[in-house]
């Protein structure tokens, strides 16, 4: 039942999807970290109205499974875009929105709710006395952030950031529901051609575990390199 011979062709076939998956994951990672960072800043500074909005956002996107969010975006986003563009009287065919854009928007929305938590944790680990010290030395807010805060919070956030990158990699496997092809989807497509399902999925499992291992190792390396300076 388990055929060793198909493993190698399956491997090459599934390898084709790896760069696309990684590219999408990196894009979502960058976007969601930026948005999550903004959310964390809003909560850190306690900006009145925005703070409640961030809490609503977090409750909404943490309570709903990602599949449901992806489907909601798939059916809701083109209509929403159409409404906005007609409001601004711009001619856009919103229904020709490519599916990979939808998956990126949906997953960014989901993951940013979690990223906000990560950045907030890193911000809370920052020692408030240091910002007082920097202010007394005449640092401006921008300098304080660039030279004192950022180097420290990035180090304490690295393990969590590596973890959330893997979360994104895993979440992309749900993209098959709206016909975006990532590693898992490619495994399914490969298996559909020759009916060796278990073999293709075993290869996909291998890919995910290797990627997770590499990401963890790289994160450890970066962390220990940066840790020296603090």
């Amino acid at each position, binding site marked *: 039942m388990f055929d060793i011979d198909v493993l190698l062709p399956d491997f090459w076939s599934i390898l084709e999807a790896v760069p696309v998956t990684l590219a999408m994951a990196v894009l979502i990672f960058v976007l969601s970290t930026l948005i999550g960072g903004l959310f964390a800043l809003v909560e850190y500074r306690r900006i009145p109205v925005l703070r409640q909005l961030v809490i609503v956002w977090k409750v909404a996107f943490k309570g709903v499974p990602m599949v449901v969010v992806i489907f909601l975006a798939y059916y809701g986003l083109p209509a929403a875009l159409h409404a906005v563009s007609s409001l601004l009287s711009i001619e856009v065919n919103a229904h020709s929105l490519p599916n990979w854009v939808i998956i990126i928007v949906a997953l960014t929305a989901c993951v940013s709710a979690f990223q906000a938590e990560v950045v907030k944790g890193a911000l809370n680990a920052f020692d408030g006395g240091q910002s007082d010290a920097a202010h007394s030395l005449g640092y401006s807010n921008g300098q304080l952030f660039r030279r004192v805060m950022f180097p420290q919070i990035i180090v304490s956030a690295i393990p969590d950031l590596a973890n959330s990158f893997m979360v994104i990699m895993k979440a992309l496997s749900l993209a098959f529901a709206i016909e975006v092809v990532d590693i898992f989807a490619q495994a399914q497509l490969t298996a559909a051609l020759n009916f060796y399902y278990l073999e293709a999925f075993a290869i996909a499992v291998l890919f*995910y575990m290797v990627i997770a291992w590499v990401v963890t190792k790289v994160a450890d390396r970066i962390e220990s390199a940066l840790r020296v300076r603090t």
Partner: protein
Amino acid sequence: MDLATMIPELLSALPLTLAIMFVAIAVGFCLALIATTFRVYRIPVVGQLADLYVSYARSVPVVLQLFVAFYGLPLVSSLVGLGDVFSANIASMIGLSLYHGGYLSEVMRPAFLAVERGQHDAADSLGYSFRQKMRRVIGPQAVHIALPGYGNAIIYLIHNVALVMYIGAADLMATAHLIMERDYNQYQFGTYLVLAVIYSLLCLVAWLIVRFFERRHAKYSSKTAPAKVRFTTSL
């Protein structure tokens, strides 16, 4: 879209979702306990196998784990000599149990290690047996530390039960798809919104239950142990 007929029909699929969830919670807890024991006490070969299992459960997408369970279990059962006993429901229960066990092990291990070494030594010097030590000294403290992470694990499990429709279990999502298709896919957005509300409510209930236990266990918090163990986000 008629909410009055749709919601009862959706809720008729809720028992299966809940059954898969509870089986995964129970079996996953036992698996996590076993895996954590092997990993914490670094038992030679078994410990490494448990490590491999945990990294499988944590780094492979849940959909893929479900598919591996769905296609892999018949292989296992034919090797053992059983017939074709695995339906989609059983396969999804086993797949999610494996996932939940691996995830939970990574909650339990840091919580166990966060209990100070001195507590073990103190219990040993007072002549506690291993079982007494675990039940009366280490257990309550570790449970207190692990509870927030356990709450997260339950919520992720609820999210992931939504994926069992891909291997053909007739849960909430699958029923929602049936309802949508019967209406010629007119009300997809609305149906998914209703689903989102149902899942949010499930998560809310789970979170309230966990928080109740968290409050009750607050008295066991150690004053010298690190106040908070950070649990990272995961799917």
